[in-house]
């Protein structure tokens, strides 16, 4: 057990829940890795240069484990299709471990199947598993808002108009949290900074993403970042408009040789490699695995030509602080409508479960979520 790098949150959770979350006792152990078939389900194309590709590249680590067969299926929608795809992996391919990598797979599909197939292990890429859920299910997740916070710090020192642009797909919890953290980073080093957000309404809609990016530049933003499935278009638009940008999901540094500052990336390979090691040693996988910079689950893209020395220094320092557990959400912070979120002197832990439920934007962000 000790080799798991436990996140603060996991420890918080498990101590509250009597350590059951971490205990592998009672879970069916994989006697040996040999004969293990791992099924992985993706919501989009495996080579989308974004979310799905980040998983697919990292999950390749599992293929190197002797005796492990990996079967993969892409473009599986969040409908009954995913339930049947996972079941097909179990019934026809003999899969005994399933990774479901899209948010909407969990409820009801993963939960239903976990109850139906108690001998199969399910792991889902979002912080959703709780004590009440089946013990053969679980969650793994990287807290990307920490990296967006670092982006914000670098961006706050790079802007001259004090207007930062954010192209976002949908107003859901994780996206809102990333936007808020981005602003908090920028405000930490530049109290005048504001973030302008445009929602495209779809996870992948290139023409509208390009239009949104252009509209933000026209409105005076001189640093852009985004949270959409494939950030390629936003980054390339920023570059062609001659402004700076921060990436998302994977490294977009080569797409913007002049203006790229840094980017927020998941480091799924840490998690998948950890799982691979467990499998090779016949260990059971933990039910809840999550973390940020502290456990190397997220990273910042290496700085590009757009990063100034001051930005690099401030971002590097802030990353060390976050790694050490210094909170991102430090009061006073008001929500967009002026109601207080945190009073002066208050702060939220970076793994505070309430942050998973973010349904607001904070003051300093313009753009409404409805």
């Amino acid at each position, binding site marked *: 057990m000790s080799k798991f790098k436990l996140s603060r949150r996991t420890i918080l959770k498990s101590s509250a829940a009597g350590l059951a979350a971490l205990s592998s006792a009672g879970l069916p152990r994989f006697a040996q890795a040999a004969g293990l078939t791992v099924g992985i389900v993706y919501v989009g194309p495996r080579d989308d240069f974004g979310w799905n590709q980040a998983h697919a590249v990292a999950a390749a680590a599992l293929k190197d484990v002797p005796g492990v067969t990996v079967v993969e*299926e*892409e473009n599986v929608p969040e409908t009954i299709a995913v339930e049947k795809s996972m079941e*097909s*992996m179990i019934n026809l391919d003999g899969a005994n471990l399933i990774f479901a990598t899209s948010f909407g797979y969990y409820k009801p599909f993963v939960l239903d199947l976990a109850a139906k197939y108690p001998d199969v292990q399910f792991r889902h890429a979002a912080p959703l598993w709780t004590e009440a859920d089946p013990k053969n299910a679980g969650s793994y997740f990287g807290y990307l808002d920490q990296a967006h916070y670092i982006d914000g710090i670098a961006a706050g020192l790079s802007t001259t108009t004090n207007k930062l642009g954010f192209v976002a797909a949908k107003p859901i919890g994780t996206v809102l949290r990333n936007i808020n953290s981005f602003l908090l980073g920028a405000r930490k080093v530049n109290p005048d900074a504001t973030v302008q957000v445009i929602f495209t309404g779809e996870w992948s809609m290139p023409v509208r993403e390009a239009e949104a990016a252009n509209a933000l530049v026209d409105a005076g933003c001189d640093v852009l970042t985004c949270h959409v499935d494939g950030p390629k278009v936003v980054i390339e638009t920023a570059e062609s408009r001659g402004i700076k940008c921060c990436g998302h999901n994977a490294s977009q540094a080569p797409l913007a040789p002049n203006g790229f500052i840094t980017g927020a990336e998941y480091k799924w390979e840490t998690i998948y490699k950890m799982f691979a090691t467990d499998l090779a040693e016949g260990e059971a996988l933990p039910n809840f695995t999550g973390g940020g910079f502290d456990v190397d689950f997220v990273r910042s893209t290496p700085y590009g030509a757009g990063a100034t020395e001051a930005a690099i220094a401030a971002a590097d320092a802030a990353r060390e602080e976050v790694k050490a557990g210094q909170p991102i959400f430090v009061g006073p912070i008001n929500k967009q409508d002026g109601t207080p979120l945190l009073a002066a002197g208050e702060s939220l832990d970076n793994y505070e479960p309430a942050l998973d439920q973010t349904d607001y934007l904070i003051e300093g962000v313009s753009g409404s979520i409805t």
Partner: protein
Amino acid sequence: MADTTETPGFAVETSMASDLPERFRRSAEFVVIPLLALIVSGILFSVFLALLGKSPVGFFALVWKGGFGTSFSWQNTLVRAAPLVFTALCVAIPARLGLVIIGGEGALVLGGFAAAAIAIPMIDWAPTFLLLGVMAIAGMLAGGIWIGCVGALRHYRGVNETIASLLMFYIAVSILNFFVEGALRDPSDPNKPSTRPIGSDNMIGVIPGTDVHWGLLVGVLLCGLLYLLMNRTTFGFAAQVAGGNLRAAQSQGLPVGKLMVVSCAIAGACAGLAGFFEVAAIHGKANASLVAGYGFTGILVSFLARHNPLVIIPVAIFLGGIAASGGLVQRRMDLPDATVLVLQGLLFVVILVSETFYGRLSIFQSKGEA
């Protein structure tokens, strides 16, 4: 359309002289030509695979295994066929009038949304049968009005129904997203905007002994009912006449406008019912997952069935099987998910081309004619 008398010169009294009874020859045409078309598609697709260095035999063996080879595969196939039955009816009924409706997906989405929305104030007090009944009616009404509008626009304004229905699909999705991410959003789930769940106790169960929800059975019954309506009633006969020659029908005093609007409304109600079952049997709530493409696959099903409601059932199962095996093909043969799209497109083209052979193959003509 399948049983209209498309072959010229019906009054041939020479069947005694031929080897086979006349009636049998005629119906044989409707079996043999589609079968030949299937075989030709199979051959063309085999060539496609062979050119790419993949084994056609392996492919079809996997399609068989994944779609029909095991009892699990059958369940998988039937679950995927259920929504297709409804959405195919949404194309087939207006097709009798010569209308090509391709926006059934929009009616599905709105039907599902209406069902989930009307349930919200009822969940706490209404008994299950009342809740589901009201939801089903709401879904059918929403879908019926939506596509009914397409028919009305066609008749009263001369707006092309194919394009109007497609445009209205995009509008339907924006209506869904507007409410699901706004006024009707359930606050308990910030990460996948959805309406309030109807609760697992209220959900429609599965047919005993299977994984398939009752929607499939309802779909099959509906196909039978609509077959009777279109082939055994004055309404169906009038629709047929109007579809054959609009001006003639008008000059005979048939209420063409009413026929169009009613047919389209029935069609939309079918698709709306598909949306209701997605909500009441699969998701338990309305969210963006309702936009899953069933409406578009339904177009293919209806054309393959030559818009005959009874033939829709086996064709939906056939295409459900192809969809069910798509994952297996991806996993075992390392082919992209788009393989199924290519196969569907090819099937579609070949089936349409096969139309040209009805009444022209001499083997099906009695000797006096040939």
